[in-house]
């Protein structure tokens, strides 16, 4: 398995990130929010993000949906076609943790499981940013993209709090 200097690659693509939108069986809400983020209103092109039609041209995959069994081989082929470094933005609750389909027989339940399948077939993913939301807000997509590029600080931190005594 080859290693890629992700920080160096990110410096190179910082002002022109080509994104490919990959739908793995989502309900279309996140896809519409992706389109929303590309409109002049939210205008993700301010950061140089441009939608491309092929994963072979893409720097980042905008990944939506809980990965249905039917879409799994196609998703694997699309990710395999992507050049290194493979940067993935998992958008929406379905892509992050399976969402409302977390125990449905016909989905594999989110990107975490897909990552294992990809690793088994020898496809390495260099960096993933999980963007929860149902659907994700266009602002949340912009925030996730900036987090992927290292332009903003991560706010979410896992925490463990004990209930106070008395």
């Amino acid at each position, binding site marked *: 398995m080859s290693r890629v200097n992700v920080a160096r690659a990110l410096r190179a693509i910082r002002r022109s990130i080509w994104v490919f939108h990959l739908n793995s069986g989502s309900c279309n809400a996140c896809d519409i929010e992706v389109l929303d983020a590309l409109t002049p*209103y939210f*205008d993700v092109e301010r950061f140089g993000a441009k939608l491309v039609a092929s994963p072979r041209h893409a720097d980042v995959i905008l990944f939506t949906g809980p990965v249905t069994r039917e879409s799994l081989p196609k998703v694997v082929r699309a990710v395999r076609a992507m050049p290194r470094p493979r940067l993935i933005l998992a958008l929406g609750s379905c892509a992050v943790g399976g*969402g409302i389909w977390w125990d449905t027989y016909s989905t594999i339940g989110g990107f975490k499981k897909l990552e294992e399948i990809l690793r088994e077939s020898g496809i390495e993913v260099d960096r993933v940013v999980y*963007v929860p939301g149902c659907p994700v807000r266009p602002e949340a997509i912009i925030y996730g993209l900036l*987090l992927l590029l290292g332009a903003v600080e991560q706010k979410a931190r896992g925490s463990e709090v004990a209930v106070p005594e008395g």
Partner: protein
Amino acid sequence: MSVAKILEIAARVGRVTRRYPYQPPLLTPEFRGSIRVDPSRCWGCGACVRICPPNALTLKPSGKMVALEYFVGRCIFCGMCAEVCPAGAIEVTKEFELSATSIEDLRTRLVHRLTRCSVCGAPTWTEAELRAVVKASPITEEYAAICPEHRRERFAKAVALRLGAGE
């Protein structure tokens, strides 16, 4: 449409783009973001766990503790947990900047201590729930601390004694 006409419309409308990271986001009053559980008010009763459609809220027991885990990566932001919470501990916030590079950063845990049955020592319910029940109903703390099985036994014994059964 001619260029002159486009320029005329552009001059009239002006800039529409939201410059989001530098400008506040467009949040409507109806928007629901992630939930926040108040540690001082939560009982650990599990009403939110039962109602949660995608199982984003789970109760995970481990020994003397039980943890209410909120996995925001699976939350569908329906707000039903806040609606059913008997203690009013869950608040729906407007937080949406939840992105994380690791999936573990999306989990928050609230750890409750369990009480033990004063007869058999089996874990019964959470301390906070016991306090709330004792406060709201006429039962004593001593009775509330017993597990359901030994409460049944105690009740059966009391009835038997009243009916004249010997020791």
